[in-house]
């Protein structure tokens, strides 16, 4: 490997642009930072060697060098952006209706474009292997770029000497010459800079005043924060760290909490939806404006049970209560490290319905017999006494007609309908009653008896999000470190002033990574009243 020995005696690694110690431009590497054609030196990374070119590169070196390029990093980010944009053109699969085939949905809704979109797998873009690989590559690029820059930068800043090469000094943006300067003036300038908290170092009369080097590490601290955020995102795919699921629980129902390996059950004792009082003058106007009731509280009174002993799915487990309380929006009920959040609800499912049997032509509808149909545990036959009985021929929890035939859309009693056969001592064979809410759809109108609804019991359903999240502390730490890095890089400035004595004159040069105005102010106030000429901003002169 070729190292570069500078005339100041310092040995620099291959690829160095400006000598780490004295800053002398290393002639054959000036193209790297584009210094050949400009008067000023490009000071990024202190002109240190970022990507050492090695002959006989191994595969490891080749991969390393690929990822250490900022150009590659930027391209990865651009590609990820484009991919992310594509993913928003059509809805992702998780957002399309559940009851249709994804392939059909994309074709029917979006035509040929939808079909291509689906075929290319863009309907699950964000969890596709190549998208994850892109994100991961950005992470890899971030790590390698940082390592490849922070190490040489650290070396260069550590090894810098107060005595710089005249070529380095002359080619700084702030540069000035003054002839016949008194030593007393130099001393005064130094002491003023000291007062401004510059750290002073000296070598044979050459002086370096430096402050805020700390600022240079900001971007790397920031990257460490980003990497922690990426790690947290990866941890989210492990169920130990993160789960998210959903469970609907009906009032009175005890249901398995998903993702708990069958260990925990939840019972919904009551679901409450409160609304703002329209008679309260504070709300009356807003409610009127809104045109409908405004909910003020969603709440589930719940109990959580743990399964005792070993059971297998389907067995009725022995349950012991482990927690009990109210679940409100943002106020979850927790068991172990799993939290149950109030997320949704459905009102007014049917719990039970009561009926009476009466004579069809009885205006008073005096009951001959009564019975209650419990939706949770319905019976096939109800004995009404006196020889009358009702047989449930069919029951449709969510009734609808399909091509003239009654059927049910689901198992949930949202719109129940019944076909009852009525038997009695004075009924030949039986009479058919077809009932649903608000209608008695008897196929024959010559029925002697009729069944009417006398009452209904309703129940609500609560929708709960089941969540475990141990990744938030990682995100928090990552975000805090990220912000520390930003603040470090933004609110501190790395300022350096070189005082470079020549035979008859003294040169002053200065550099900062940002806020040149502030640096100029520092220098002007330090040079005030001395013989020194104020350095010129060579960039401005151009």
């Amino acid at each position, binding site marked *: *490997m070729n*190292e570069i020995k500078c005339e100041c005696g310092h040995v620099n690694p291959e690829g160095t642009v400006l000598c780490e110690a004295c800053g002398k431009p290393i002639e054959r590497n000036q193209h790297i930072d584009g210094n050949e054609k400009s008067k000023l030196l490009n000071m990024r990374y202190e002109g240190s060697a970022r990507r050492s070119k*090695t002959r006989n590169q*191994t595969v*490891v*070196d080749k*991969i*390393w060098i690929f990822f250490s390029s900022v150009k590659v990093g930027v391209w990865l980010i651009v590609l990820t952006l484009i991919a992310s944009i594509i993913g928003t053109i059509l809805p992702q699969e998780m957002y399309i209706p*559940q009851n249709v085939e994804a392939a059909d949905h994309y074709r029917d809704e979006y035509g040929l474009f939808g079909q291509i979109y689906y075929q290319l797998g863009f309907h699950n873009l964000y*969890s596709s*292997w190549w998208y*994850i*690989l892109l994100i*991961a*590559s950005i*992470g*890899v690029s971030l*790590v*390698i770029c940082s*390592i490849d820059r922070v190490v040489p930068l650290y070396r260069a800043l550590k090894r810098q000497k107060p005595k710089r090469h005249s070529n380095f000094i002359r080619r700084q943006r702030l540069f000035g010459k003054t002839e016949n300067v008194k030593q007393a003036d130099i001393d005064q300038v130094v002491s003023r800079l000291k007062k401004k908290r510059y750290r002073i170092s000296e070598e044979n009369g050459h002086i370096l005043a430096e402050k805020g080097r700390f600022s240079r590490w900001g971007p790397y601290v920031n990257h460490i924060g980003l990497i922690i955020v990426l*790690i947290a995102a*990866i941890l989210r*795919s*492990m169920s130990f760290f993160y789960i998210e699921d959903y469970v609907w629980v009906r009032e009175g129902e*005890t*249901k*398995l909490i*998903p993702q708990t390996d*069958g260990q925990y059950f939840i019972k919904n004792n009551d679901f409450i939806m409160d609304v703002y009082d329209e008679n309260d003058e504070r709300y009356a106007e807003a409610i009127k404006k809104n045109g409908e009731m405004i909910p003020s509280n969603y709440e589930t009174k719940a109990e959580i049970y743990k399964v005792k002993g070993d059971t*297998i*799915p*389907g*067995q009725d487990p022995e349950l012991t209560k482990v927690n009990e309380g109210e679940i409100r929006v943002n106020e979850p009920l927790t068991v172990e490290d799993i939290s149950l959040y109030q997320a949704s609800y459905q009102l007014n499912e049917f719990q039970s319905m009561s009926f009476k049997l009466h004579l069809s032509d009885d205006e008073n509808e005096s009951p001959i017999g009564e019975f209650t149909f419990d*939706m*949770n*545990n*319905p*019976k*096939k036959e109800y004995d009404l006494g006196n020889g009358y009985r009702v047989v*449930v*021929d*069919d*029951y449709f*929890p*969510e009734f609808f007609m399909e091509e003239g035939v009654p*059927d*049910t*859309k*689901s*198992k*949930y*009693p949202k719109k129940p309908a019944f076909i009852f056969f009525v038997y009695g001592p004075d009924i030949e064979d039986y009479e058919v009653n077809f009932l649903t809410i608000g209608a008695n759809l008897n196929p024959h109108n010559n029925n002697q008896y009729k069944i009417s609804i006398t009452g209904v019991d309703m129940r609500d359903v609560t929708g709960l999000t089941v969540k475990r999240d141990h990744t938030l502390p990682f995100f928090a730490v990552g975000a805090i470190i990220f912000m520390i890095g930003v603040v470090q890089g933004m609110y501190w400035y790395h300022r350096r002033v070189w005082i470079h004595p020549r035979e008859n004159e003294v040169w002053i040069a200065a550099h900062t990574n940002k806020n040149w105005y502030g640096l100029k102010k520092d220098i002007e106030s330090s040079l005030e009243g001395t013989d020194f000429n104020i350095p010129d901003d060579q960039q401005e002169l151009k």
Partner: protein
Amino acid sequence: MSNKKKKRFIFRSIVLAILLGAVVFALVSNFMKDKEAVADGDQAPPFELEQVNGEGAIHLSEDLKGKGVMVNFWATYCDPCKEEMPYMQKLYPEYKEKGVEIVAVSLDATKLRIRNWIDKNHLTFPIVHDKNGTVMEAYGVFDLPASFFINPDGTVERQVLGALTLDRLEGYLNEIVPESEK
């Protein structure tokens, strides 16, 4: 000098190995997340459910030991489920002889509806009631119908999410006929 180069090689290799590990981990764990709860070749999750058209409960690994078992998840409100039921009924007597049992797990809310359906369609294979949906959850089934074909040794030979045709059903049932009956 070559020592320095060696050091750098080792350092880069370690960093790249760690990064590669993280990338592979991210890919694998993302892939695993989408995976079905029961994979082909896995031991079928055990269950015990009350019979609707018979006495007592059926315990998968105890009562049906040594038999090929088709576990079919269905419900009376699921039209494609109801369409494949007659196929199952048609093949059931023949395959029961060969040592294959069919267990239909209903996800209905009430036994009343299941009984009505059994009576109207004269189904003779055992039908059990998964009232709380815990067995469905254990098998990772979200959409009906779904069928699991389980080998006599208790491993899952095949799972079919969606409806079956008569031909396919017969082929799959053949796959799980115990060796002794072939």
